[in-house]
């Protein structure tokens, strides 16, 4: 009679339940890894959606089509047809013009005439009632920006004359924290009138420089569907390609915020990866230890007639339960972390994001958890499948083989690559990251091999006949003789502390860069400075105690050719779709300089000699990448009717948060020096009264120059980014604590054997001093080698990540000292705490 199959659940319970403590550690490691991945992915999705909503609120639309010529009547129907779905739309007209209050000198404003319904998202004024005043019956109303109100002392009820019309000030517009910098509406302060009142001003005449715009909303603000939005945007771009109209989307808005968000998101991703790898270290060490315990049991069971199929099913059941429970705990931990972050940001950020578990993040967490379970299962079964039951006879003992560990590593790297690719990281970056990790692992293995050779040499030369010398020799010998365990320790310590250290280095550099308003960054900006006014500006700035004064020439130009091929043709041939096509169509502000300004760093090629007139240019690195241009390529610009052909000879990295006047394109002075130009400026004035006095004096001499006082905005941004910096610091600390906890548990490996050894040596007559010295020698040896792994790893990871963030490594000295000391101190702390725990038991 055939016996019934071995009951899987019962066998699994008998085999694994006694190891529930160790398995719980594995589940916790999985939970930490999955939790970090989920928390970060979810947070990025939540904040990303918030940023999206915020960006289009600032622009008032999802997409704006504008032109310096009146828009043709058929444009809107064509665009509606191209979108394939009815879109809300509204028209505006804007121009730079002069406004005057009573007998005060007139001043430059950006006049925006709008139809009812504008903006399509958000409000013009802080409240809807003020918005409604713009279209109320009565004398023509006008809404003015806070800059106009404060700088020109304009109050509600005052009369402001623009062209032939006297407008009554109905209220103030809502402030735009960084709108002035992003250039959404030009640099001059904004005033808004009803479109119906525009004709009465008499400003729109033949030859007037007037921008006509048509704004569209793609959908309901609370139901953003990225794929649909992107497809609709692309359709609209295609519909107007080559018509000489400018198309601007919410994606282009708030470049500064986007840059901050991208850096923070990259840091979040790094935190997630580091925690994942720390969790993986815990999982690997826990698994190795667990499997080594299981091998004997499984071999015994094989002798008892439990077949490989039954063993496989029991392990599959175990790892499925572990993966799912670890994943579920991880998601809950992640949600808790997200709730804490959102709560910390509440009221401090303009972004609105409410706690939710986003579907992509949940799917990713599930995939990671099941992937980990599958890898654990594969490796376990591979080893157990090859287990020879007869190895038990004669006292044989089975151990995990090196190729199993290699398989574990290979599967881990493959999983990591899949995760990065799923996160839309480019294949090149993914390959660079996983390749870098592989190189780091191989390098670590080589370094450990070298360390063993050196230790072996050292051990042979450790002389002395005292008991202390014998204890030290024995400590070093233990490291050498327990090679497998020492290697596990070293890799866990070196990788764990190195990666946590890298996180610290990145966090401190990022937090430093986020301190926008701190230090000596400019807070006053000057627009529309004519060449012959520069000397006056400089003189007045000096007179009012300004520092960091920078005035940069500004030359308007259009990109017409790349390497001899016309940009219009390139766009029409559909070689430059999407962002590249948009970059080819836009108008550029070029500048010229002898050298690099503040916040700029040369990253490729060479800069020209001072005073040069060579036909060359320098591009901002990321702009060059987006435009698809490399060193040696030729660009032709149309500088107000005159073509100029320039070769790209250098690439610069620009810190846009430096708040200095920065440009995508810079040429030598000799190339653009004679072109028609204006200048923009930035300077720092500490005292608000000095700012007001500087504005008054400058206005008295040159009324055309617009002065933007960004001190209040910078102060607000500084407070916000300070909070963000502290949040990043907290995140890095939490990650470090998690890492230390996992390492602490990892270092517990082999405690039983250590205790047995101590007992044996005590029986052989070793005293407490000798045992301490032996342990000290063992720990110090391992610590020094682990430090030699951790420090280069921390630098090797931090540098490329910071390069991706467009940042430099901040002073790393203290951080590196901590990273170097941690591997020495952690094993000692571990033995102390384990000793205390044992004492309590």
């Amino acid at each position, binding site marked *: 009679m055939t*016996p019934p199959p071995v009951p899987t659940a019962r066998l699994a319970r008998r085999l694994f339940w006694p190891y529930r403590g160790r398995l719980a550690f594995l589940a916790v490691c999985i939970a930490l890894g999955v939790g970090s991945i989920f928390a970060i992915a979810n947070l990025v999705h939540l904040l990303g959606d918030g940023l999206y909503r915020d960006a289009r609120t600032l622009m008032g639309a999802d997409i704006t089509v504008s032109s310096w010529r009146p828009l043709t009547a058929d444009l809107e129907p064509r665009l509606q047809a191209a979108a394939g779905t009815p879109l809300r739309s509204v028209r505006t007209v804007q121009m730079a013009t002069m406004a005057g209050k009573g007998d005060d000198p007139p001043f430059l404003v950006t006049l925006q005439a709008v139809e009812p319904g504008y903006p399509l998202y958000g409000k013009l004024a802080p409240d809807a009632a003020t918005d409604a005043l713009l279209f109320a019956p009565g004398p023509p109303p006008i809404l003015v920006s806070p800059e106009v109100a404060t700088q020109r002392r304009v109050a509600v009820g005052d009369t402001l004359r623009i062209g032939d019309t006297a407008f009554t000030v109905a209220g103030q517009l809502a402030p735009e924290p960084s709108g002035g910098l992003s250039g959404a509406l030009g640099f001059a302060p904004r005033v808004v009138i009803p479109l119906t009142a525009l004709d009465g001003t008499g400003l729109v005449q033949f030859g007037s420089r007037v921008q006509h715009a048509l704004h569209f909303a793609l959908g309901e603000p609370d139901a953003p569907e990225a794929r649909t939005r992107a497809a609709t945007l692309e359709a609209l771009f295609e519909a107007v390609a080559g018509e000489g109209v400018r198309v601007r989307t919410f994606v282009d808005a708030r470049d500064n915020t986007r840059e901050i968000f991208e850096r923070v998101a990259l840091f979040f991703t790094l935190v997630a990866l580091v925690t994942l790898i720390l969790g993986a270290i815990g999982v690997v060490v826990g698994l190795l230890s667990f499997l080594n315990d299981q091998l004997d049991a499984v071999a015994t069971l094989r002798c*008892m007639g439990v077949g*490989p199929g039954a063993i496989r099913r029991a392990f599959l059941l175990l790892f499925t339960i572990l993966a799912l429970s670890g994943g579920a705990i991880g998601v809950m931990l992640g949600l808790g972390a997200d709730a804490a972050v959102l709560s910390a940001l509440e009221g401090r950020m303009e972004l609105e994001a409410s706690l939710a578990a986003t579907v992509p993040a949940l799917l990713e967490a599930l995939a990671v958890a099941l992937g980990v379970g599958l890898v654990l299962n594969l490796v376990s079964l591979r080893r157990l499948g090859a287990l020879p039951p*007869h190895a*038990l006879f*004669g006292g044989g003992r089975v151990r995990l083989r090196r190729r199993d560990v290699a398989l574990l590593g290979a599967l881990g790297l493959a999983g990591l690559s899949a995760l990065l690719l799923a996160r839309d990281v480019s294949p090149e970056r993914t390959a660079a990251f996983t390749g870098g990790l592989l190189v780091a692992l191989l390098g670590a293995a080589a370094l450990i091999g070298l360390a063993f050779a050196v230790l072996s040499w050292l051990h042979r030369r450790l002389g002395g006949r005292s008991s202390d010398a014998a204890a030290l020799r024995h400590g070093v010998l233990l490291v050498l003789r327990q090679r497998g365990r020492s290697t596990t320790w070293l890799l866990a310590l070196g990788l764990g502390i190195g990666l946590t250290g890298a996180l610290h280095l990145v966090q401190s550099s990022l937090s430093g860069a986020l301190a926008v308003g701190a230090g000596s960054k400019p807070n006053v900006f000057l627009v529309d400075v004519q060449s012959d006014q520069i000397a006056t500006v400089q003189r007045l700035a000096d007179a009012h105690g300004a520092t960091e004064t920078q005035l940069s020439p500004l030359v308007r130009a259009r990109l017409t050719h790349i390497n001899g091929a016309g940009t219009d043709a390139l766009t029409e041939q559909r070689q430059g779709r999407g962002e590249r096509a948009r970059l080819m169509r836009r108008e550029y502000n070029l500048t010229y300089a002898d050298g690099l300004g503040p916040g700029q760093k040369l990253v490729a090629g060479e800069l020209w000699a001072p005073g040069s007139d060579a036909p060359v240019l320098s591009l901002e690195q990321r702009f060059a990448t987006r435009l698809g241009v490399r060193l040696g390529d030729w660009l032709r610009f149309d500088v107000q009717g005159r073509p100029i052909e320039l070769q790209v000879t250098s690439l610069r990295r620009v810190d846009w948060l430096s708040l200095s006047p920065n440009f995508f394109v810079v040429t030598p002075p000799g190339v653009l020096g004679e072109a028609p130009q204006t200048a923009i400026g930035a300077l720092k004035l500490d005292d608000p009264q000095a700012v007001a006095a500087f504005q008054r004096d400058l206005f008295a001499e040159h009324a055309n120059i617009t002065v933007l006082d960004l001190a209040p905005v910078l102060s607000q941004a500084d407070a916000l980014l300070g909070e963000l910096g502290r949040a990043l610091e907290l995140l890095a600390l939490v990650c470090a604590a998690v890492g230390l906890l996992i390492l602490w548990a990892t270092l517990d490996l082999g405690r039983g054997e250590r205790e047995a050894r101590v007992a044996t040596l005590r029986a052989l007559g070793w005293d407490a001093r000798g045992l301490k010295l032996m342990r000290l020698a063992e720990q110090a040896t391992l610590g020094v080698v682990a430090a030699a792994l951790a420090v280069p790893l921390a630098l090797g990871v931090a540098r490329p990540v910071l390069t991706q963030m467009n940042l430099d490594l901040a002073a790393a000295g203290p951080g590196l000292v901590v990273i170097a000391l941690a591997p020495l101190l952690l094993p000692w702390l571990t033995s102390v705490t384990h000793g205390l725990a044992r004492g309590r038991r």
Partner: protein
Amino acid sequence: MTTPASSTATPAAAESVLTLSAVVKEYASGGHALRVLDGLDLDVREGETVAITGASGSGKSTLLNLLAGLDRPTSGSVRFRGQPIEGWSEDRLAEWRRTQVGFIFQDFRLLPRLTALENVALALEVLGEPPREAARRAAEALGQLGLGERLTHFPDQLSGGERQRVAIARAFIHRPALVFADEPTGNLDPDTGARVLEQLLAVDAASRTTLVLVTHDAEVAARMGRHVRLVRGRAQ
């Protein structure tokens, strides 16, 4: 299980349980084949107790592996009740061991995180016996071996002799046709070893199970019904 004091004698007319015919076993070693068993013939009969002895490296453990279906011969045949087991699949062999074979190891091989009772009951549970019934029978078997007070003790809380008695109970609990014992007293002091051997033989006699015991102890071998000495891979 009862515990009579004397050893068993070989029933003359009993059927063959295990038959080895011209068994050769070679291992690759340093680029050439190392012949451990060299045309070995052996016939083990129902209820027989057989001692296998020999010097270190004579092939005792290899022979035990082949008899238990844990390894396959290079040539020759191993038959269980006339059926060649070397051609069986891994699953078929596992099923055979689960139902027909018991093992006793020199170093006990008890699962360290299971109690004495659980270790013994496991042999029944893998046969589909309900846990409660398995525990009842395991407790009974351990009680007969004098371990009634040690049911909930873990292996590291038991003495060497007690551990081996738990292993004996585990080997016999499912009433196998064959029990293989690999140096069952090798890790025990002489007095304890002698007591454990007495209990092993008593349990075996009571169950009339065929016992194949590998040992290098002549006194232990003398207690078996038959003594096979391995010399250079052949039986003498």
